[in-house]
């Protein structure tokens, strides 16, 4: 049973706040704020995936947009084929069932994550950053040049995919779906962090040679973490496509990869609720500053600079103090 220390209290407050905003907005008849909260939940889930690789494993992946976009395209492609009635591959048709889409997103992201990780993890430092970026750009340009699924224009999802027993077209219902998956994703992160695997992953971040001397192969540990990380970000991509009912190559762009890293740094690298804090901060800035100026990202950049210089633990670090793990 985790103790109710300061960080856990902050985490609990964040979880409650995220669910309170859409409930209040629903009561006030303001569905726009429900959509904002859903966006926070989905981006937080994607960043939780990256946090596993970056926060615990020290793997600065600049290519996680590939998994985010792949999840999105799985949702879009399966929905499009379900609508047209044409098979996707090997006679298998599309679907509008979210749970099937999630399973396929996880599988596709995991397989691509395995391939990218198996090659990228043979490098480290700036080479790792560059090679993950290169892979993501390959997927990006592939999507742009694939006219069957919209190419540069992207692909629309005409009707939001369905989940048994839930009316996903209702913003609040769809928010709850995303919220539950976010909490499950954060729970998985917590389980991994507390496990022997998590300890070995963090140890391999700290010193690869020392890890090898206790019989752990850092490559395998990192690859496993990278694949799980890709899967989590992939399912977030599927939800994001359903939120917007649209998927485009912008989900695969390097800016998206950068955004995910920014979310983690803003919230607190390696912190359990860091991605959620970062996503909330990001979406609030986007909404508040974006209403005032098109150059809102300039101000976000300033804030990021301040966080990196003066608050290395991000928002969670500011509110809850230093991390147990550095």
């Amino acid at each position: 049973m985790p103790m109710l220390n300061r960080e856990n209290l902050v985490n609990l407050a964040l979880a409650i706040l995220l669910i309170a905003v859409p409930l209040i907005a629903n009561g006030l008849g303001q569905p726009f704020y429900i959509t904002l909260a859903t966006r926070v939940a989905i981006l937080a889930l994607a960043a939780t995936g990256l946090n596993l690789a970056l926060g615990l494993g020290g793997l600065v992946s600049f290519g996680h947009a590939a998994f985010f976009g792949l999840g999105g395209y799985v949702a879009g492609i399966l929905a499009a084929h379900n609508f047209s009635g044409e098979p996707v591959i090997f006679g298998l048709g599309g679907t509008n069932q979210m749970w099937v889409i999630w399973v396929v997103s996880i599988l596709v992201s995991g397989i691509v994550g395995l391939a990218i990780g198996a090659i990228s993890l043979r490098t480290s430092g700036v080479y790792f950053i560059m090679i993950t970026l290169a892979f993501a750009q390959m997927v990006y340009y592939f999507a742009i040049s694939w006219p069957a699924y919209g190419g540069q224009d992207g692909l629309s999802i005409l009707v939001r995919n369905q989940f048994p027993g839930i009316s996903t077209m209702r913003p609040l219902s769809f928010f709850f779906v995303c919220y539950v998956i976010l909490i499950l994703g954060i729970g998985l992160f917590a389980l991994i962090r507390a496990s022997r695997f998590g300890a070995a992953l963090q140890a391999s971040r700290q010193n690869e040679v020392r890890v090898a001397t206790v019989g752990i192969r850092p490559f395998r540990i990192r690859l496993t973490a990278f694949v799980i990380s890709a899967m989590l970000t992939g399912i977030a991509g599927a939800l994001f496509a359903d939120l917007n009912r649209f998927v485009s190559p912008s989900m695969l762009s390097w800016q998206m990869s950068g955004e995910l890293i920014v979310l983690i740094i803003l919230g607190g690298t390696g912190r359990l609720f860091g991605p959620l804090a970062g996503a909330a901060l990001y979406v609030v800035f986007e909404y508040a500053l974006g209403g005032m100026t098109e150059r809102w990202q300039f101000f976000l950049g300033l804030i990021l600079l301040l966080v990196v210089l003066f608050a290395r633990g991000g928002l969670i670090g500011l509110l809850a103090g230093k991390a147990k793990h550095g």
Partner: protein
Amino acid sequence: MLLDVQDITTYYGSSQALFGVEFRMTEGEVVALMGRNGMGKSTTIKSICNLLAPKSGRIFFDGKPTERMPPHRVARLGIGLVPEGRRCFPNLTVHENLVAAARPGKWTLERVNDLFPRLKERHAQLSRSLSGGEQQMLAIGRALMTNPKLLILDEATEGLAPVIRQDIWKAIRHLKSEGLSILVVDKTLSELLPVADRCVILENGKSVWSGSPGELTVETQDRYLGV
């Protein structure tokens, strides 16, 4: 034969550090690897663990050649290394340091905590916040958690307070009484010689003398160890 080091030569880049080290260890034996500073003791240990691959010569552990194995596989054969300088994982807790390394066998978290009760008291503390002695206990505990057939201690008591040194030596004697094979490098001869079954002396990267502690005369000590 547990460990068989056959005439190894090892280089740091183009600079040769070992010029032919050879010795053997049987199961349950405690071997003291001795020599003045810079004679190749730590390089020999790195070569055994394949952290620094020998250029020539052969190393067999438990009958298996190790020179071509990556370090993690050498460790999995059953070599537990306590490296020089108390190298724990600083940002992990004591508990995490121990479980990260754990492999099935008779050494469990409970037994390590029994051997070093201080670790149990500090289980939730980050290892970087431990005292030097506690970090050394943790490094030994972590190596034991891999359930090694051979424990290698490289300067395990260096720079520690006398009281803590006594605790570490007590633990080493206990491990010996349990039949664990130990290869130990240490400068405290008064503690090292009573626990060792055999001594191997290195000079200028070569093994130059081997025998029991009883055979280690004052002249030999003067000549090779400078004491």
